[in-house]
């Protein structure tokens, strides 16, 4: 295959990847978009195999073996993973992209002739620059994603881990990283290559451990972005346009998602990265909570009130995901709709642990997507609603964000559930949310607290209907 033809085919693959993201502009076109992505990937792989066929029989065997192993693991995971675990799955996948970038760079370093970037020990300096950026970002993405995975899957505490002098340590590591990148470009030594890898691996861990659980939507988007930049770095090394285009797409996609998440929390990207937020839980909010009386309700009360309502807006949050309450919730919605009640769902951008997490869970429970609304589209409707049914969400409904200038979340856009006739809160306790802030809504006259596991309470309401 001529070099021009293969370059053209890589371009076609890149365009198909653009179209696959374009398809996600609406659920109707999204499935076709995903198909474009698969075709693009198939073209990229076929082009590589045709233009640079594996050198001998053993190499072919290794290729087939790796595709069979990796492909079947991937297929099984994709089929089995519960939708509530999507955030940790995505984090795990990010870590694989990061590690693959490191390994490909290592492969290119040890066999530069196969990548047309020089000969062993004599690689073009420019390729070394691109390679070192790819390997550094890749390694950082790898360990960062592993930590994010551990935090999201609760294998590690979500509380921020604050090391003394962490900023000094990080700056020192970054400086050392630059030092070894310069060293690698000047000398091309393997020692420098592996020092870059090790330092970037350490930096990835140190960057993510101080970030608390509530900031995970930002972290996971940020790592998404990094995995793209790592791929782009390798794309420059290989001179492969499919990889460069994809890296740029993914990099900007993750960056935009991080921006949207930060904006929805009214936090600057820098303050999230510096970390320490999202961990000052309980202590601050728990103490003041007990003194004020909250109105507790039963499932029967809730069922009765809702059946007699005209309009109910349901506000799901992370608690719904943890309790797997989405199916019971949809059942409740169905009964209400049969009774002639108008049911809508309101979703805050940072509800859950990753962008769009709640939408996927509701879709899984067969909630039609045209009943699910974003913050800006539904906020004006709470005033006309009889009931706001808040299930497993807290901070995103906190009126202090609009009313209390001293509140740490002041200025964050929130769902104005308090404007509804009655607010029902399903929560495990009166404790504060992730941000560690007391929610004054719990103690208002038109608020009814339904304490207990989100799924059980919803099921009881369904029974009482």
């Amino acid at each position, binding site marked *: 295959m001529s070099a021009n033809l293969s370059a053209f085919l890589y371009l076609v693959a890149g365009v198909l990847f653009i179209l696959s*993201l374009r398809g996600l502009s609406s659920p109707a076109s999204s499935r076709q978009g995903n198909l474009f992505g698969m075709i693009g990937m198939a073209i990229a792989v076929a082009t590589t195999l045709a233009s640079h066929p594996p050198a001998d029989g053993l190499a072919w065997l290794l*290729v087939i073996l790796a595709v069979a192993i*990796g492909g079947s693991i991937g297929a099984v995971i994709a089929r089995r993973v519960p939708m509530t675990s999507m955030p940790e799955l995505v984090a795990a996948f990010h870590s694989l992209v990061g590690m*693959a970038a490191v390994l490909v760079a290592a492969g290119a370093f040890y066999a530069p002739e196969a990548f047309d970037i020089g000969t062993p020990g004599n690689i073009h300096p420019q390729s070394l620059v691109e390679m070192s950026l790819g390997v550094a970002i890749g390694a950082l993405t790898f360990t960062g994603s592993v930590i994010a995975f551990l935090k999201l899957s609760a294998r590690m505490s979500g509380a921020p881990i604050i090391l003394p002098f962490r900023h000094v340590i990080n700056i020192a590591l970054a400086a050392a990283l630059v030092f070894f990148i310069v060293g690698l470009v000047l000398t091309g030594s393997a020692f420098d290559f592996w020092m870059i890898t090790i330092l970037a691996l350490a930096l990835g861990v140190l960057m993510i451990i101080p970030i608390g659980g509530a900031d995970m939507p930002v972290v996971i988007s940020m790592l998404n972005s990094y995995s793209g930049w790592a791929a782009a770095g390798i794309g420059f090394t290989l001179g492969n346009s499919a990889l460069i285009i994809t890296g*740029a*797409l993914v990099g900007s996609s993750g960056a935009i998602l991080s921006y949207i998440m930060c904006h929805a929390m009214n936090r600057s990207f820098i303050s999230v990265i510096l970390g320490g937020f999202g961990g000052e839980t309980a202590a601050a909010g728990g103490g003041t909570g007990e003194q004020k009386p909250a109105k507790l309700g039963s499932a029967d009360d809730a069922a009765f009130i809702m059946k007699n309502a005209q309009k109910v807006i349901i506000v799901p949050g992370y608690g719904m995901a943890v309790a797997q309450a989405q199916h019971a919730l949809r059942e409740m919605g169905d009964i209400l709709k049969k009774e002639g009640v108008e049911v809508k769902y309101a979703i805050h951008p940072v509800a859950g642990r990753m962008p769009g997490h709640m939408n996927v869970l509701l879709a899984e429970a067969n909630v039609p997507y045209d009943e699910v609304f974003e913050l800006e589209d539904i906020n004006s409707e709470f005033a006309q609603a009889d009931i706001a049914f808040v299930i497993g969400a807290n901070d995103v409904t906190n009126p202090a964000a609009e009313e209390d200038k001293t509140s740490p979340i002041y200025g964050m856009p929130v769902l104005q559930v308090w404007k509804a006739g009655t607010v029902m809160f399903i929560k495990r306790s009166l404790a504060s949310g992730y941000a560690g802030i007391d929610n004054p809504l719990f103690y208002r006259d038109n608020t009814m607290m339904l304490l207990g596991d989100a799924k059980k309470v919803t099921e009881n309401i369904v029974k009482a209907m």
Partner: protein
Amino acid sequence: MEHAAQVVDPFIFRLSIFVLAVFVGYFVVWSVTPALHTPLMSVTNAISSVIVVGALLAVGVGMVSSGSGWARGFGFVALIFACVNIFGGFLVTQRMLAMYKKKSK
């Protein structure tokens, strides 16, 4: 100043592709509906595994020098990781997207 003999470094072409693709990405991603942000992440994950082309090059290298064996080893592991991601990423995205339904009338 020589004119005719000037050759543009291929790096500049790559950089042009990169910069333009960042802009394309910017506009395409802003048009993605927020309801599909999770599938967006899983599909970007899958397509960033196009790094598989690098893994294929590394694993398929001819055994010409002492480094070749290492390259094959690294490439083999990278290929497994990339394939987990490609198959896992696209299939889980497909599974998610299949769940998004409109109101049945």
